[in-house]
């Protein structure tokens, strides 16, 4: 185990972090839309949201990645593995985030929104000033948790040939015959990234003035 190998694994960790950040961010945006759809009073929208969440939460990410990786070329979209990986991770996390957000919105105390109506706020003001901030406070810890889950789940993109941390460790393990060391160091990198995300999450909570609800 030389310093060079640790640096090589470090580049894998950068790839893992990049994949996770992109899929978490895009997944949040899609998650908000899916959450809105499943809370909608329009039945087809509501059902679309429910089925979307159920499917992408119910299928193992590995199977989802294989599906996307093999189906896209058949649709005429010859995308590189990294794009298929990003699509898979994003779809998966968007479903989890939609469900988390839905839980947050549903659990905002109705009295708070009634109070908003009483003082003459309109629907938009109630949503933006009361419902959304409280839902965010309720869901931030779960969203941080989801970021950690995706960081770990991103290890599966190694299966579709993306050179992330796990893939790098696999390659180095077979070329150096040091699997124990390689996977242990890869694990340490994941742990480090997760600790950063965990602390970052609580720091973000403080920054936004959110108390644990």
């Amino acid at each position, binding site marked *: 185990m030389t310093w060079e190998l640790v640096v090589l694994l470090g580049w894998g960790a950068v790839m893992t972090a990049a994949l996770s950040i992109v899929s978490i961010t895009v997944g949040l945006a899609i998650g908000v839309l899916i959450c809105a759809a499943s809370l909608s009073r329009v039945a087809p929208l509501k059902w679309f949201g429910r089925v979307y969440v159920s*499917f992408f939460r119910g299928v193992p990410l590995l199977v989802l990645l294989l599906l996307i990786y093999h189906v896209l070329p058949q649709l005429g979209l010859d995308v590189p593995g990294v794009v298929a990986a990003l699509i898979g991770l994003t779809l998966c996390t968007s479903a989890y985030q939609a469900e988390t957000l839905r839980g947050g919105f549903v659990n905002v105390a109705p009295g708070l929104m009634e109070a908003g109506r009483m003082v003459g706020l309109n629907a938009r003001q109630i949503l933006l000033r009361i419902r959304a901030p409280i839902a965010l406070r309720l869901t931030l810890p779960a969203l941080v948790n989801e970021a950690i889950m995706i960081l770990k789940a991103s290890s599966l993109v190694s299966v579709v040939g993306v050179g992330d941390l796990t893939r790098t460790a696999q390659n180095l393990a077979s070329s150096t015959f040091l699997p124990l060391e390689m*996977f242990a160091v890869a694990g340490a990198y994941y*742990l480090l990234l997760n600790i950063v995300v965990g602390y970052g999450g609580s720091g973000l909570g403080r920054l936004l003035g959110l108390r644990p609800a």
Partner: protein
Amino acid sequence: MSDFSALREAMPEIVDGLWLTLAMWLAASALGLVLGLAIALARRFGPVWVDRPLWAVVGVIRGTPFLVQIFLLYYGGPFIGLELDPTPAGLGGLALYGAAYFSEILRGGLLAIPPGHVEAGMCIGLSRLQIVRRIMLPEMTLLVLPASVNMFVVLLKETAVLSIITVPELTMAVTGFGSANFAFSQAALVLAIVYWTLTELTGGLGRLLERRLDRFKLA
């Protein structure tokens, strides 16, 4: 998948794969639950020198990907004299992974029991063991049910990862058929539908159980 005779030939292997998936899932869930309960109780009632190392082990398992743990166990194991076949390695890895998460779920449940209930037990002269068995464990069961069902579903989905270390479970069997017959996307689609059905069934059973146990809830 136009060639149905190929499918018919591969069917026994796929059915075996499905059984292996279900068997490993249930075995790992049961082992993980028992070990997780032991860890939770040891950390709750044991001395600090038991709690601290367990805290670290649980943290490491929860902070690293299951795939890396499995690789470490399966490819790294032989270097420390732990030579396991894919299936036992997968089962052991999955059970340990489940145990770490279950221990946290159960510990949360133990900590959420209102202290007044335990005090009430002490007041009427129950022994410590009786308090754990008659008050803490039943109350904890109700508290942890939703999170535990969720964990069962997670473990079911993680069994698919075991195909990567060549455990001949469902994903391995179906993708094997897919690559032998150039039906990659059909194979993945079938897998998605089977796992989706299984996870929905598990979730549904969990919700049913929750409703059945609802009447035991205090206030």
